[in-house]
């Protein structure tokens, strides 16, 4: 077996991230609390270097290494670049929030970086084992992150719930994978795809395995009926962690779904399309209707996420390049919007005060018109009203649906987004139509201020000029699948 440096090249960013994270872990042991800022800077620097490595090694040609266990294609490079940016934004938004709550500790950064590594492995996994390892690395880091605020009962409860349900989902996923392995004799997703196309495997066992795999994927995406953990985790975790769970992990979950369903089990798309359709409609219904009843902003956004992931499934279930690229565009635009939404919650929080109820947004226009305007854009984007990016995300998915003859599903999706519009409008109403009760000035750090401005305006700018991002998503999917 020949094994050279060239085999390691495609996974250079992962290797670097692992080494750098270990270095940060050790460095952090030797620095005092006053110098903790160094850990933060090193983490950002690591992400920047990873970005540079991924960007400079992106060839546009799909490369397999480690006997196909690891795939480096344009889709993975694109997703990883978005992932670095997302994680970096999460770190910047979280800095002051963590500081004020005594959570600005080395563990946070190391766990976030390990979770990032797990997501990168998921994005590039070419084999059931790799995918599973990536998933577990991500999940274990997340359980710890959610529980980081030890003295908060809510956080511990959320972590416990997340852990138990997550372990169950992992078990189901493994069970499904083992059945597919039993039917095909292979763990390699491309090989499985080939075998299924030739029709050599036993379809009964395969479909049974497929059900478990889809359930596992659904849990990770957080779509109904596997959504129970989402509201509790979003509400219980410190907002910095919610921000991370609510945005970055969606990118990885999307890649995970694409690798398993589109790349591995494409030949069985007729079977998983039906499951996805049911889950998508359920998620849209449960997410949008339940969100109306929420008074806690984090919980409301959690239900809104469920609805959005339902929409994402609609993109995937078109099972063609247009559908996958629509789903990719959807997830990227959701991440951009979600970053701003959760960032805004942290912006309004201060020492000893968690802005997590809807009423905390009251009169934001009176307190600070600029942030109210940004939040307005975010809410209209989540509701899918043009000219914001959220509209084009929905448009792309609907278009993929209609082109594959699912016009009925498109109408259902549209009706539920109308219901969804109601609770997003309520947020706008609180900000603009109600009087402020809380008159504390909003004083974010300089970098937070700049980044939030860019983030919020990106929602509008990408809505006016969506073409570059859209073309990029289409190109990445076309080149990789």
């Amino acid at each position, binding site marked *: 077996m020949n094994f050279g440096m060239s085999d390691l090249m495609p996974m250079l960013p992962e290797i670097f991230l692992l080494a750098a994270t270990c270095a940060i872990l050790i460095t952090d042991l030797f620095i005092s609390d006053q110098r903790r800022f160094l850990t933060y800077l090193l983490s950002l620097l690591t992400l920047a270097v990873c970005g540079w490595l991924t960007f400079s090694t992106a060839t546009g040609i799909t490369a397999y290494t480690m006997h196909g266990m690891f795939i480096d294609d344009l889709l993975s490079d694109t997703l990883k670049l978005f992932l670095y940016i997302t994680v970096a934004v999460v770190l910047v938004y979280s800095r002051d929030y963590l500081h004020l709550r005594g959570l600005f500790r080395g563990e946070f950064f190391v766990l976030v970086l390990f979770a990032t590594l797990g997501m990168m492995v998921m994005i590039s996994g070419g084999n059931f084992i790799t995918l599973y390892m990536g998933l577990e690395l991500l999940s274990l880091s997340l359980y710890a992150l959610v529980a980081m605020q030890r003295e908060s009962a809510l956080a511990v409860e959320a972590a416990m719930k997340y852990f138990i349900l997550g372990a169950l989902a992992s078990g189901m996923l493994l069970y499904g994978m083992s059945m597919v392995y039993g039917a095909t004799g292979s763990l390699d997703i491309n090989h499985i795809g080939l075998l299924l196309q030739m029709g050599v495997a036993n379809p009964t066992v395969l479909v049974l395995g497929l059900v478990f795999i889809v359930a596992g994927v659904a849990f990770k995406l957080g779509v109904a009926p596997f959504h129970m953990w989402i509201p509790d985790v979003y509400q219980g975790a410190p907002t910095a962690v919610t921000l991370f769970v609510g945005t970055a992990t969606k990118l990885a979950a999307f890649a995970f779904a694409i690798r398993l369903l589109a790349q591995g089990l494409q030949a069985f798309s007729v079977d998983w399309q039906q499951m996805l359709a049911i889950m998508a409609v359920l998620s849209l219904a449960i997410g949008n209707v339940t969100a109306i009843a929420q008074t806690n902003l984090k919980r409301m956004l959690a239900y809104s996420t469920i609805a959005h992931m339902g929409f994402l499934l609609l993109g995937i279930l078109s099972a063609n390049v247009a559908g996958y690229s629509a789903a990719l565009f959807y997830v990227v635009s959701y991440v951009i919007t979600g970053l701003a939404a959760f960032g805004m919650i942290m912006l309004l929080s201060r020492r000893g005060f968690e802005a997590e109820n809807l009423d905390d947004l009251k009169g934001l*226009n009176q307190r600070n*018109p600029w942030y109210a305007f940004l939040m*307005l854009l975010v809410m*209209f984007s989540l509701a899918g*009203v*043009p*000219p914001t990016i959220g*509209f*084009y995300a929905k*448009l*792309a998915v*609907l*278009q993929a649906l*209609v*082109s594959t003859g699912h*016009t009925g599903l*498109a*109408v259902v999706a*549209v*009706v539920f*987004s*109308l219901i969804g*519009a*109601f609770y997003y*409008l*309520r947020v*706008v*109403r609180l900000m*603009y*139509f109600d009087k402020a009760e809380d008159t504390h000035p909003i004083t974010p750090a300089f970098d937070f201020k700049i980044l939030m401005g860019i983030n919020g305006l990106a929602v509008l700018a990408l809505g006016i000029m*969506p*073409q570059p991002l*859209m*073309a990029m998503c*289409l190109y990445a999917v076309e080149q990789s699948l």
Partner: protein
Amino acid sequence: MLAGYPILSLVIWLPIISGVLVLATGSDRNAPLARILALVGALVSFAVTWPLWRWFDTQTANMQFSEFSSWIPSFNINYHLGVDGISMPLILLNSFMTVLVVLAGWRVIQNKVSQYMAAFLIMSGLINGVFAALDAMLFYVFFEAMLIPLFLVIGIWGGPRRVYAAIKFFLYTLMGSLLMLVAFIYLYFQANGSFEILAFQALPLTMSVQIMLFMAFFMAFAVKVPMWPVHTWLPDAHVEAPTGGSVILAAITLKIGAYGFLRFNLPITPDASHYLTGFIVTLSLIAVVYIGLVALVQGDMKKLIAYSSISHMGFVTLGIFMFNSIGMEGALVQMISHGFVSAAMFLGVGVMYDRLHSRQISDYGGLAKNMPVFASLLMLFSMANSGLPGTSGFVGEFMVIMGAMQVNFWYAFLAASTLIWGAAYTLWMYKRVIFGAVTRKEVAQMQDVVPREFVILGVLALLVLAMGVYPRPLTEVIHSSVSNLLAHVAQSKLP
């Protein structure tokens, strides 16, 4: 003549840019600056629409002043603009109204002035976009985006129940337009991957598909018009909106619904339109007669005018679905005329409201004593609202009744009854508010119109009279486009 100059882009983006500039003046400390900047922006934006009128070719039904550039090539969505005789007058009307709205809010709005003015300017640009867009998706983007500023205007500066009204308004209109979005996407695939409205119009479609598409468009536009029974958002929104919001709602946004019928329903689904004529005519006549009666019993002046608007818009939809030249031209004349008259009525109520802070008819009486100038101006507008010959209100209504007569006597008979209802509710309101004895001492202290208000109402009065006496410039502009549309609708599109 003016080929190559992006006049329509200017018409759309100039108000939006000036709106952003006004917004940048920030807090109310800079309110005077915001006001002046907004007025300059509105005037300049109106000025740039002048070439549209001056160099408009009345001989052709083709799209004029066209602009085309690629916008989202992935979906073949283009930035394609152009106007014909149907849309051009509406753009002029909208740009003109924006100036009046800025002036009308000059003193009254003291809270968040820059946001108020900016919302109207941005909305004005977006509405011009709605009328000028020739790409369905571009149309949709403008169509939806204009809801956002209007939602904020009603919700921030409105009356006591403003939150309810704003959310009701937004959800109602969103409900209609989302189904239209699905229809657009469906047509996109039928037209081999194009969102061009003109391509949609040329597309052969089976009857069942046409009916489904017609209903999707109908949902979007009937809510906007609004037609009975989806009209209930309008009285709420009108009553709670500030004066400027009411003016834009009545004068402009209602016209978007009727414009949608002319641009989408009729040419894209002509067979379904003919098939469903009875349905539309019934709803229109219910609006004309029943809503006219509802208007009669209103105690709130703004509500009364809101119901009167629904009744008048019933006339517009009736005229459109008569499928003859005089009826359709009458509908268009009625749209423009209603733009002036309803705006003037709302501005008139605004003048009274600013002095007494009441919209109830019963709180007034005997205004003629100390507000003679105002009373005579309002007299003219009331007459126009009830369709008196010599005012613009008469021309459109008369043409629609003539058109209806060609189709069915009873249509014309019921439609003509509006001349009675309209006169009844408008003049009765006028009598109770303006004539009679002065019942309250607050009314006795009300001042007559100040020069700013006089200019606003006076200009509108001149326009109402001019259109009533000599409507030809307008009918000339719309004639070719209407003939072309009728010829198109007369041809079956069944494959």
